[in-house]
């Protein structure tokens, strides 16, 4: 790393930055405790599962080195003042051991082998240092002490110039920055598919650790899993029947193809990407959050891209630089141009409050959030740390950060800023424009006609009021009222005051409600027609898109992230560490014009270490609940190492070899035996399985490095496929007990449905789902008590006057409900729909009481249960048949005789209670419809089916 530190001036971190750093620190501390994760070269499954119990005492036996164990602590807490800033605090530089020995104003900071004589340790153990609220943890202090007592070792000779030690080899060698290589598949010879390779990799690691996989789930469970995973919806009973009836060898593949071809596939997977892109339909003001009414165009672009299996490399290029892929000026009549422009909405998703508060700080925040979204989404790196100073964990310099940012500066220049409304790009085609203009003209004509007739009517009122005056003053009165107020004589004024009802036409128009209420209301009704006419206009095509500024935009390193302290100029480029192993120094090739396209092209040229790994991990994550890297937005040193690094690289390589097709990747994953495993504990699984002593396996496993696998295990896997058979089950460890997080993937993890899937599934099984794809979002508004509901707020005289129902639209998939940042449909919010600040990599799946209350009591849920029960009621006269359908709908399951009797008993009990309900209206209804009590009981049953874990969780 030849880049020298630049002069630095004092400044203050904003609270936001500070908080971010505190968070980082906490995360780092946790990582530290786990030992080894930070440096990530150990085989990670072992690091995370087997050594967890021993993490705390690991340092006792470990040989500690400065570069690996101590420097990361000092870098976080101390380097800024004692090294990176031009003026060394206390004259002490802590960046090299050599310099610690030399010491500063207070003498040597370090006495190897004697921790009590080392000032460094003294300052931090007494919490004198670092200043501020954040101190070293006990564990960090212990590491320091131990390192000193072991002799304050370094791993290698230290450079003469501390600036050359900006990053250590350990940091640069972090796995995620290394090139992607096609890993050798365990037991490679007779490999038939990538799906089989997945089984080999997972099986080998599991067998290696003494675990074995689970048998395949039954077909109904598989179908439910596939349907939710690929489309976010449960299978219909017809689809289930068709699948069960298909006994062809490729029945499963056919289902997969059907689901991948469904438009609901794009809706489901588009939503996953929208999380990562930070899709939100508002700007993010804390007070008065402004809607983004055109954001849905980007949403539709994304859904469409997934449905058409747009190759992922192309998908990235379009989102980063769609505008630059158009030759010449974008043509509104060219749908392909419009699509490419819409793609760049990706760069417009970050919160942006500059429409209401256009300050340099807020502009800078928007750009920083955009960069945060792009880097975490595409690179799986949070580079934001490097916005103020060199990254605290990753080998990313502040110059790297601003070089990367320079790629985007011409599109989002903080000194030549346009607030969001001005950035909208009109791609409405000519025909639509003409039609809109015609309708507008008609509306204007209609309004003018109303205005004219209203004035004429007001004239008659004025005439009438004048006529009511004594005849001798009428003419004078008419003259007075027609004289502008400023020109009236005192006599005219007096005359008008004496006849207060005689007013100008304008005044009477404004007060028509007082003069003639019925006419006023009639004109109002006509004006509503004008509004209705305007609503018939075809949609315009306003896009949240980017376009580079034509004038040159300068890019600078911003000292401590402060937009008011620009330092040296920088040229656009990729983060250097991501270019280290590549043929050309790609960090320098990003061109002066079309920077974003040049950037996107090097990102997708097949040699980038992150782009493919990150997307493979995300696709994996949405099938298994967790990625192979469990920090899908953080592949840096702060993140978790992959549980199966060879598999990750293998799939990344194969994805690129298969044209970056995500549908191809989906097929490989869902066709693997790993994916098809059962979630449930085997029936016979009891204490019969004897556990191999944990320590023994752990010890063996710690020495295993990337790429090296236990030969015996490989042999077993190669011979038997994924589910390693063994003569005696006693040789396997109990993964449910010893690997509760399922890092070895020896079963399918049980997962709660996410917010959208819960609501969509309720709509689907109750037969209410409106399957319309695409288009403007369905409005969500706060009702009078602040509960977010579907519909539009009605205002009368500026005051809340109820919610306008959205009709059929209210039953569309959750993807299409408007998602303003802090205004989310109550149900979705309760089931953890994330608020985009700025984006989301992993959904929270909570288990909280409001969810229970909602499913028990919410009127929408009760109504959906009624709809489902109506569906059952109409389907068949026989209770058992109805139950069969109910279980098919809700659980994709057959109903057992025990369940039938339990359900019927419940229904009978409920019906009996309902018959006794003394409510007068209800009793009246019972008189007319004696079966009403039973129908209500069925609805009650349906509600419980939808409230059950069997419905809410996916096996």
């Amino acid at each position, binding site marked *: 790393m030849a880049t020298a530190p630049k002069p630095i001036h004092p400044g203050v971190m904003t609270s936001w930055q500070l908080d971010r750093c505190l968070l980082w620190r906490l995360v780092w501390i946790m990582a530290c405790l786990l030992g080894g994760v930070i440096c990530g070269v150990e085989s990670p499954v072992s690091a995370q599962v087997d050594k967890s119990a021993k993490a705390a005492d690991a340092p006792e036996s470990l040989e500690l080195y400065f570069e690996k164990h101590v420097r990361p602590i000092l870098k976080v807490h101390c380097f800024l003042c004692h090294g990176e800033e031009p003026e060394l605090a206390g004259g002490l530089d802590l960046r090299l051991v050599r310099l610690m020995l030399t010491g500063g104003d207070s003498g040597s900071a370090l006495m190897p082998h004697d921790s009590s004589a080392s000032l460094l340790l003294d300052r931090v153990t007494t919490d004198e240092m670092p200043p501020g609220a954040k101190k070293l943890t006990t564990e960090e202090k212990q590491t320091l002490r131990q390192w000193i007592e072991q002799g304050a070792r370094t791993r290698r000779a230290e450079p003469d110039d501390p600036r050359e030690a900006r990053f250590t080899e350990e940091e640069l060698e972090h796995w995620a920055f290394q090139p992607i290589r096609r890993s050798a598949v365990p037991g490679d010879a007779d490999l038939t598919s990538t799906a089989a390779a997945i089984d080999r990799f997972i099986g080998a690691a599991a067998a290696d650790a003494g675990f074995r996989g689970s048998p395949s789930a039954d077909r109904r469970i598989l179908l439910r899993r596939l349907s939710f995973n690929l489309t976010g919806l449960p299978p219909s009973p017809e689809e289930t029947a068709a699948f069960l009836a298909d006994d062809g060898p490729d029945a499963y593949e056919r289902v997969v193809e059907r689901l991948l071809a469904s438009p609901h596939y794009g809706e489901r997977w588009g939503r996953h990407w929208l999380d990562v892109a930070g899709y939100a339909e508002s700007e993010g003001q804390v*007070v008065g959050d402004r809607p983004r009414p055109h954001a849905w165009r980007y949403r539709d672009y994304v859904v469409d891209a997934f449905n058409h299996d747009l190759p992922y490399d192309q998908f990235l290029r379009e989102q980063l630089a769609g505008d630059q892929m158009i030759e010449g000026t974008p043509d509104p009549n060219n749908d392909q141009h419009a699509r490419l422009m819409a793609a760049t909405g990706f760069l417009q998703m970050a919160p942006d*409050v500059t429409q209401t508060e256009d300050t340099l700080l807020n502009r800078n925040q928007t750009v920083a959030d955009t960069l945060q979204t792009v880097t975490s989404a595409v690179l799986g790196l949070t580079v934001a740390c490097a916005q103020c100073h060199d990254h605290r964990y990753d080998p990313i310099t502040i110059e790297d950060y601003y070089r990367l940012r320079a790629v985007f500066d011409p599109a989002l220049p903080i000194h030549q800023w346009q607030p969001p409304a001005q950035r909208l790009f009109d791609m409405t085609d000519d025909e639509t424009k003409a039609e809109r203009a015609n309708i507008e003209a008609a509306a204007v004509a209609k309004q003018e006609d109303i205005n004219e007739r209203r004035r004429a009517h007001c004239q008659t009122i004025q005439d009438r009021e004048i006529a009511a005056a004594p005849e001798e003053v009428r003419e004078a009165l008419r003259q007075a009222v027609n004289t502008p107020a400023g020109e009236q004589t005192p006599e005219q004024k007096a005359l008008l005051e004496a006849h207060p009802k005689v007013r100008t036409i304008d005044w009477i128009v404004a007060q028509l409600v007082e003069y003639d209420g019925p006419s006023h209301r009639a004109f109002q009704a006509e004006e509503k027609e004008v509004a209705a006419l305007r609503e018939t206009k075809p949609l315009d095509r306003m896009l949240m898109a980017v376009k580079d500024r034509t004038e040159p935009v300068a890019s600078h390193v911003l000292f401590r992230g402060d937009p008011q302290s620009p330092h040296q100029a920088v040229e656009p480029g990729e983060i250097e560490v991501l270019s280290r192993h590549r043929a050309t120094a790609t960090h320098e090739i990003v061109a002066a014009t079309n920077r974003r396209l040049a950037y996107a092209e090097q990102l997708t040229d097949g040699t980038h270490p992150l782009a493919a790994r990150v997307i493979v991990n995300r696709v994996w994550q949405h099938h298994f609940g967790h990625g192979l890297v469990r920090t899908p937005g953080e592949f840096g040193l702060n993140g978790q190492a992959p549980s199966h690094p060879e598999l990750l690289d293998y799939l990344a390589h194969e994805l690129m070899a298969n044209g970056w097709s995500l549908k191809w990747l989906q097929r490989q994953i869902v066709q693997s035996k790993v994916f098809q495993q059962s979630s449930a504990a085997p029936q016979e699984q009891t204490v019969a399985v004897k556990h191999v002593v944990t320590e023994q396996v752990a010890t063996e496993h710690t020495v295993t490095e990337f790429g090296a696998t236990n030969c015996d295990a490989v042999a077993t896997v190669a011979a038997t496929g994924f589910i390693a058979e063994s003569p005696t089950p006693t040789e396997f460890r109990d993964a449910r007990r010893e690997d509760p997080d399922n890092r070895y993937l020896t079963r399918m993890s049980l997962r709660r449905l996410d917010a959208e899937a819960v609501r969509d599934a309720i709509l689907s099984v109750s037969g209410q789902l409106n399957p319309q794809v695409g288009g403007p979002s369905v409005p969500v508004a706060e009702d009078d008590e*602040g509960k977010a509901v579907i519909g539009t707020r009605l205002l009368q005289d500026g005051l809340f006057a109820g919610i306008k129902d959205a009709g059929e639209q209210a039953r569309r998939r959750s993807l299409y409900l408007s998602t303003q940042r802090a205004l989310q449909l109550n149900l979705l*919010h309760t089931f953890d729909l994330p608020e985009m600040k700025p984006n989301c990599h992993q959904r929270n799946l909570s*288990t909280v009481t409001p969810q*229970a209350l909602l499913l028990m009591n919410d009127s929408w849920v009760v109504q959906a249960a009624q709809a489902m029960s109506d569906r059952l009621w109409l389907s068949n006269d026989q209770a058992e048949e109805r139950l069969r359908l109910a279980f098919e709908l809700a659980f994709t399951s057959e109903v057992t005789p025990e369940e039938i009797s339990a359900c019927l008993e419940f229904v009978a009990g409920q019906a009996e209670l309902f018959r006794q309900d003394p*409510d007068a209206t209800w009793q009246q209804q019972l008189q007319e419809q004696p079966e009403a009590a039973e129908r209500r009981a069925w609805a009650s049953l349906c509600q419980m089916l939808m409230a059950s874990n*069997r419905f809410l969780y996916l096996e």
Partner: protein
Amino acid sequence: MQSDRSQQRGPGFGRLCSRRHWLQSSAFGLGSVATALLMRQDGLLAQDGGSLKKPDLEPVVYDLLPKQPPRPARAKAMISMFMMGGPSQIDLFDPKPELVKRHGQQFAGDIQFDNAAQASRQIMAPQWEFKPRGECGMEISDLLPHLAEIVDDITLIRSMHSAVNNHFPGFFAMNTGGIVGGRATLGSWLTYALGSESQELPAYVALTHPWGLPICGGDSWTNGGLPSLYQGTVVRPTEPRMFNLNPPPHLRGSAQAQQLQFLEEMNRQHAERFPENHDLTARIASYQLAARMQLSAREAFDISDETADTLEMYGVNNDTTRDYGTRCLIARRLVERGVRFVQIFNNGQSWDHHGAIATELPARCREIDQPAAALVKDLKQRGLLDSTLVHWGGEMGRLPTIQVPVGDTELKNVGRDHNTYGFSMWVAGAGIKGGHVHGATDEFSHYAIQDKVTHHDWLTTVLDRFGLDAHQLHFDVGTQRLALVENPQARVVSEILA
């Protein structure tokens, strides 16, 4: 590490870290913590079953667990009786002999009208007599005879000053520290800083009027930029008092009990297939807890177990006072059960007496006077007044001159226009002096001239009672730092503290 994290707790730090993904906020700020406590007790923490902690980049998570304030607190809870519209201090709290003397004369000084079209300079004396009350001799008008009985327990502030005209901005000033809608309300700040003592009831409750919501609607109890966990929960004046907390009418009672029993059986059978999955057992427990919460909440809202004396004291048996009495009584019951902040609202801006003050003002007073006084008496007799801050007041007061509605030539329906430069409110409990009058207005009760108390001072004083420093309490959202009180000059009105 534990201690390291706990250092970050407390209001000053804005963003708090927690390792619990799943303990998440809810739209109605209820229950997540209760679940957490329950799970912890039962050892049911999802994804915590002996597995290691992961260095995930977890989202910042907030909760409602009770938190220690940085300084000793005098108040544990607050009940605010907000009188939206601006009750007339001239006719209720602030006697001015000068006005009586000059009744009908023209007001000579500088006057701040709101409605110029109906403005008048004609001075109007209070229409009701003032008398010294209690041992302290505080003067209160005959419109508030019940308040007159508790003056020895309250401080009357006669020098309120916001200079923020109109109801929306005035309310926001008094309740959010700013003058635009959408800022976090006082109750949100208190629950953000201190959590709640109750894990089975909402932390922050707004009790609304049967005739409608206060004019600011949802902005009256919004969490603004604070996490939605801290939004006020509307407790409706009629059943169902809370959404999703009561079963739909036809499922109430045994029907839902049967449902939950059936559901639990189904869930238990399901969970047997996944013996290692704690999430499933947690959800089973969450339904049990939900059922219990329904009971606790219903119990808290159900005043039928109160004694006849208590009901009588609050005026629950009287048509005029029944609604407000019931709501005051519910407020006491909530505070008794650990709720942090309760605000009782009137509908619309029903204290806004631009006209017909002679009939409307007494009507409003009759509805609230007895219940409001009963609340203080009741809190006192139960030993709760020491730890409960009670507030009675609106967002403004009224002018010493008449306002004449259009066409009212006989001055039958006159009222008073807004006055935001000098108005009154009273406070009690939590170490506030009893029998004390603070501050004064000029001889016409138009401008506060002595010991002026601004809305910022008031909010600073409230936070102080809870052991919080208004100049420290904040929350960061991106580049935006939010605070209840942004005025560096704001001070604790220590003169009213015992």
